């Protein structure tokens, strides 16, 4: 395989001509701004990338019941050039993450890996140029045809209940949750208990209640009492995003589908979003 790139040239001085063959070019001064947010959704191997002029959306799914989307807006990138309306491809996420962290992903101040991500189009690999301390790494990741992500048809007009919380308070709750419970039951209601997380594990039942006027509760908009159960195994991966986030919006629509939107602040103080959709556990229908 021949590299169409001279390794002696710094990333920034690549000629315009070389760039023109790519349908997508995205550069970051700090590759961690991408790798961190991708880590938050890395619970399955395949990641569907779709790029538009607005930025990059990366989707990961599990068993048609859970979907995670990471949004990295075009403004986050130092350069974001796209030559088609929509560029889509699928790659193996663990491979991409290993490539992005090839220099160790150091968090030490003043040390960062510069990234230039290029894609020529259908059938071509996703090419990454990474540079740290004068050392250049070139990665060519095979791309696959993108699968069609599931459309959960989640729209805000169908949302019955919504709260926005400081992530801090949910992190606390999740760290104390009884993980031996098969499900997490979420109760949202305009009256008591307002917002309740319940588990039914080996050591008994536990409830975690949030008063609606707590400092941690930024918004409380519940119109109807809803009790839904979600598989703990599906919710577990969402804690990766929770750990990175500063705020989280919890919404449930009239079909019981749960949407968790995490606001994530990156190393440079910019905001990105990670969103999870989760289907309710079927058994709840009997109750």
């Amino acid at each position, binding site marked *: 395989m021949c590299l169409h790139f001279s390794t002696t040239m710094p990333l920034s001085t690549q000629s315009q001509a070389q760039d023109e063959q790519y349908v997508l070019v995205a550069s970051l001064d700090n590759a961690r701004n991408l790798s961190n947010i991708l880590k938050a959704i890395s619970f399955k191997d395949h990641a569907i990338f779709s790029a538009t002029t607005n930025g990059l959306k990366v989707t990961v799914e599990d068993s048609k019941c859970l979907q995670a989307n990471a949004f990295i807006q075009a403004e986050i990138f130092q350069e974001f050039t796209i030559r088609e309306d929509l560029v889509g491809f699928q790659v193996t996420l663990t491979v991409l993450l290993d490539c992005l962290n090839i*220099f160790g992903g150091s968090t030490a101040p003043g040390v960062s890996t510069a990234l230039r991500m290029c894609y020529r189009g259908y059938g071509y690999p996703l090419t990454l140029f990474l540079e740290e*301390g004068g050392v250049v790494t070139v990665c060519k990741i*095979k791309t696959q045809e993108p699968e069609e992500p599931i459309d959960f048809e989640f729209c805000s007009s169908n949302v019955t209940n919504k709260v926005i919380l400081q992530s801090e308070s949910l992190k606390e709750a999740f760290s104390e949750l009884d993980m031996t419970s098969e499900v997490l039951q979420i109760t949202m209601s305009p009256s008591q208990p307002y917002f309740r997380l319940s588990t039914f594990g080996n050591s008994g039942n536990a409830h975690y209640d949030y008063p609606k006027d707590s400092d941690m509760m930024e918004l409380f908009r519940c119109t109807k009492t809803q009790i839904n159960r979600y598989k703990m195994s599906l919710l577990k991966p969402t804690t990766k995003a929770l750990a990175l986030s500063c705020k989280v919006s919890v919404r449930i629509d009239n079909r019981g589908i749960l949407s968790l939107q995490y606001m994530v602040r990156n190393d440079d103080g910019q905001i990105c979003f990670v969103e999870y959709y989760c289907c309710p556990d079927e058994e709840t229908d009997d109750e």
Partner: protein
Amino acid sequence: MKFRGKIVDIACLNHFSRVITTISKLTKTCILRLTPDNLFFVLCGKVANGGVSMWCELSQANFFDEYQMEGMNPEDNEICLEVAPENMSRALKTVQNAKVVKVKLTKKHCPCLTIVAELPTLSSVSRVVTHDIPVDVIPRRLWHEFKEPTVPDFDVSIYLPPLKTMKNVVDRMKNLSNFLVIEANLNGEMNLKIETDLVSVTTHFKDLGNPPWGDGASQGSSSSQSRDPEAMAEARVDIRRLQQFLMGQQVNPSKAMCNIVHEKVVHLILLHDDMSLQYFIPAVV
């Protein structure tokens, strides 16, 4: 056969302990050769250990305050033992703040390297910790297997980049592939490459410099003088062997270099004031 050594200086003790730990990361068992001036840790390339070999040389005077040895006989004034470096490493780690550490060859239920450490106390009663590390004494007729390896007739010799950087890269590549191609030229460039069904990754190091070897070494020969400085010599190796070498790096070498015999062997050398470590990784097809 007699051997006893004494380390008093805490810096020497720590350094000795680091060297042993490094070796323990490279191999489960190795040969310890004791001569009047040096200690050698030797591993010969056997199929069982993936064909890697190691040669580590310590000058006794730089580590020991007292050092006495008496070999098998005056003509062969050496002692040759088989030892598990991890046992030595573990023993030395527990006595890191000792006032005095003595290492001696003893005959208990079996031949042992006995490490006796006098630990600091607040009272007048001294605390002594003794570790007996079983060893096998290697008979004279087998000594010839543990001779210093000759520097191979390499195609390219190059200084290594900072080992920490190299370790990060190799660790990630290990997640992606089982084999790695290491290639270098006489222009100070070295590349680490992997290629699998899913991904190809190449890390390019440049301006590393090529060590000047004397007349005796192979670079002085006519073949490499005429070598194109851009031409790469490469070897495909088991990535775990390279990772092991980088993982154990607790000694901060003053010089680290790599000799490549094209498609045959990678010869890694670490030089420190008072120790040198050579590590050979055979190329695989």
